[in-house]
């Protein structure tokens, strides 16, 4: 049995090379010849309308789907055929997929328990994450008894518990209302600045992608349309599709490109 990485030393760079994946016996191309490089410690947003293949690509990175062609590398190591449990990735599901029969603390401890880590190490790590996620005091609660925003933090804590080299987030704010969404988005960005774990976030919300990510990759019908920093994309969309897809944001927003992240402030909505 291959040993599980319980403590990654450093965030990994991700290399996606000519990855293709089709469903329904080749009839439906979900991901078509995508190549993308994500430097270690960066946060990439996979942006695209529904059906553009962004979730499939994320699941390929997680080892939950396997590509028909192409290669996925973490820090130069080919992980294309490595199953999910041996990839050392953290995954935050759109629906959070928390274990309903376990408490908040037990959910966070799960990845460490299945790796048979010592009891006191697990307890210390869970405490640390509860504090980091600002959900101290919720450890003993059932996951059915926390709010959507809190559940999202529990899911993130569980994903981060084994010190993954890569963090994958599937529409992490999709199920939350606008206010909580804004707050969590800001918080996740600060958290990423702190942890610097290589992260890939799937979203259909262009504003979210531009506000939070170091790099934005725009997908359309399985093809990679454009991958660049938010500032570059806003300045030069480079294709009609990207231009059109971003136009809703551009029309309603005022961009102040300061530093790494774009600050996007909405004009007062007319009522």
């Amino acid at each position, binding site marked *: 049995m291959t040993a599980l990485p319980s403590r990654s030393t450093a965030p990994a760079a991700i290399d996606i090379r000519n990855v293709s994946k089709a469903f329904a016996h080749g009839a439906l191309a979900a991901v078509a010849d995508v190549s993308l490089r994500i430097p270690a410690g960066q946060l990439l947003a996979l942006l695209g309308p529904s059906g553009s293949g962004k979730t499939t690509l994320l699941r390929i990175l997680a080892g939950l789907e396997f590509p028909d062609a192409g290669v996925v590398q973490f820090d130069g190591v080919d992980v294309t055929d490595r199953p999910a449990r041996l990839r050392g990735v953290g*995954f935050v599901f759109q629906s959070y*997929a928390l*274990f309903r*029969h376990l408490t908040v603390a037990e959910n966070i401890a*799960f990845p460490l328990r299945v790796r048979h880590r010592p009891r006191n190490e697990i307890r210390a790590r869970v405490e640390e994450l509860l504090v980091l996620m600002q959900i101290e005091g919720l450890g003993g609660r059932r996951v059915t008894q926390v709010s959507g925003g809190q559940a999202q933090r529990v899911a993130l804590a*569980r994903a981060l518990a084994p010190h993954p080299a890569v963090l994958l987030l599937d529409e992490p704010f999709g199920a939350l209302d606008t206010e909580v969404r804004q707050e969590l988005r800001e918080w996740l960005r600060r958290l990423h600045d702190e942890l610097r774990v290589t992260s890939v976030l799937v979203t259909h919300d262009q504003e979210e992608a531009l506000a939070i990510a170091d790099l934005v990759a725009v997908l359309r019908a399985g093809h990679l349309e454009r991958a660049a920093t938010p500032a570059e994309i806003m300045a030069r969309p480079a294709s009609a599709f990207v231009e059109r897809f971003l136009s809703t944001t551009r029309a309603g927003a005022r961009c102040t490109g300061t530093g790494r992240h774009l600050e996007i402030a909405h004009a007062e909505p007319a009522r």
Partner: protein
Amino acid sequence: MSRRRVRPTDDPAVVRWVLTALALGVFGVLVGLPVAVVVAGALRHGVEAYLRAITDPLTVDALQLTLLVVAVAVPVNIVFGVAAAWALAKFDFPGRAALITLIDLPFAVSPVISGLVFVLLFGGRSLIGPWLIAHGWHIVFAPAGIILATVFVTFPFVARELLPALEAAGRTNEEAALVCGATGWQTFWRVTLPNARGALLAGVALATARAAGEFGAVSVVSGHIRGRTNTLPLHIEILYNEYDFSGALAVATLLVALALVTLAIRWAVDAHAARDAA
């Protein structure tokens, strides 16, 4: 009633009362009354006669055989049922629809035929029966046959209760466990099974009740050898046919008690789960 209570439904009181009364009435006539008759009949000749009836050596033999049948058939069906439900819920394979139908087969077939099948398969005049008997394997008219027939008859309970629960749970939780680093085995024990605990318990309770109470299939394979192949239901029939009505009802209280123990265990586990959730 001075205080108005706000209710989520606005059905008139009459409707609520009529429906509740109907439910209680049906329950009383179909469940409460028969149980009362069993208990009253069992005690008709006094507590002493009742105790004598249930401590009769033949009754004790029948109780032991019934408990043995339950102790073998239920665990076997837990293993088979969980495996079948899991495979059906999580995988798409050729013959899946056929397998779902086959699981229901014991429900569709008359229990007498289920018993007869084993007589025809393993009996003295069957193809392999004589060989088995020559090698000391007694199946028909022996406890092994009773257990086989009971396993067959109770097979659908666990699988049928579990399948919808596993299907409803979907695959996301298991994917989450895998990404967390869990092996397939760990995922099954720590995530899949706990998620379906309620349904599993319901299936086990039903299978236990049926295994203890099965008459038709067991009757055919048993041969009614008193003290050897008589289960409680068969023993009750024998006493009844001998016009020992209070004896038959006394033994029946043992089956009722067995059912109540099963229910009590289920309540206790449910209550435990509810307290955990609170």
